[in-house]
């Protein structure tokens, strides 16, 4: 089974702190994603990466950056956390593009509270 692991499930950070959310997948997937989930808004794409050191902005990249130094690891960085970044963050990955029926695999989520 595909496993996407988010190492921190629950975090509480102070306004202005730098925050790192880590994600690791064990299936050699090329594509990795960071989503943010808020009630009534569904999942919104923050950033995605289709290869090592490659990244593309999603729909809401402001206030976030990402790092992908190794294929299996995709990190989300909040340079200076703010209270409006309190949310559930979901990491996901997908296999190579060759098969359009591939689904997307999610981690368990990281609940971030910024106080």
């Amino acid at each position, binding site marked *: 089974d595909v496993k*996407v692991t988010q190492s921190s499930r629950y975090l509480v950070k102070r306004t202005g702190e730098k925050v790192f959310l880590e994600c690791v997948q064990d299936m050699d997937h090329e594509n990795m994603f960071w989503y943010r989930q808020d009630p009534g808004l569904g999942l919104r794409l923050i950033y995605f990466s*289709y290869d090592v050191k490659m990244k593309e902005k999603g729909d809401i990249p402001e206030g976030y950056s990402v790092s992908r130094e190794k294929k299996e690891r995709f990190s989300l960085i909040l340079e200076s956390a703010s209270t409006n970044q309190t949310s559930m963050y*979901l990491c996901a990955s*997908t296999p190579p593009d060759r098969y*359009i029926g591939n689904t*997307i*695999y*999610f981690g368990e989520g990281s609940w971030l509270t910024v106080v």
Partner: protein
Amino acid sequence: AQSVAQPEDQVNVAEGNPLTVKCTYSVSGNPYLFWYVQYPNRGLQFLLKYITGDNLVKGSYGFEAEFNKSQTSFHLKKPSALVSDSALYFCAVRDIGGYNFNKFYFGSGTKLNVKP
């Protein structure tokens, strides 16, 4: 751009009754549609997908979905609901066009409450 809409924030159904969770989509080109379920404090889990072929697709836990091209809908159904089906359900469409290849777009989610 691709998008999906889930018109109901919440669906209430009694255990044993059939359930339907609605989804409509807007895509350019062929639609590639998915349903996911999320239990409290967990990530999303894949239920089923429509890529091509039969309009009625079957998935995990007894769920099925009906693809209707003329109504641009992909409603999730189950003949007999269980209390354990209570969860948050997301419809999604996969973008396979050019630069946005491999991006998934999600609806806002529908909370399903199944009462004993």
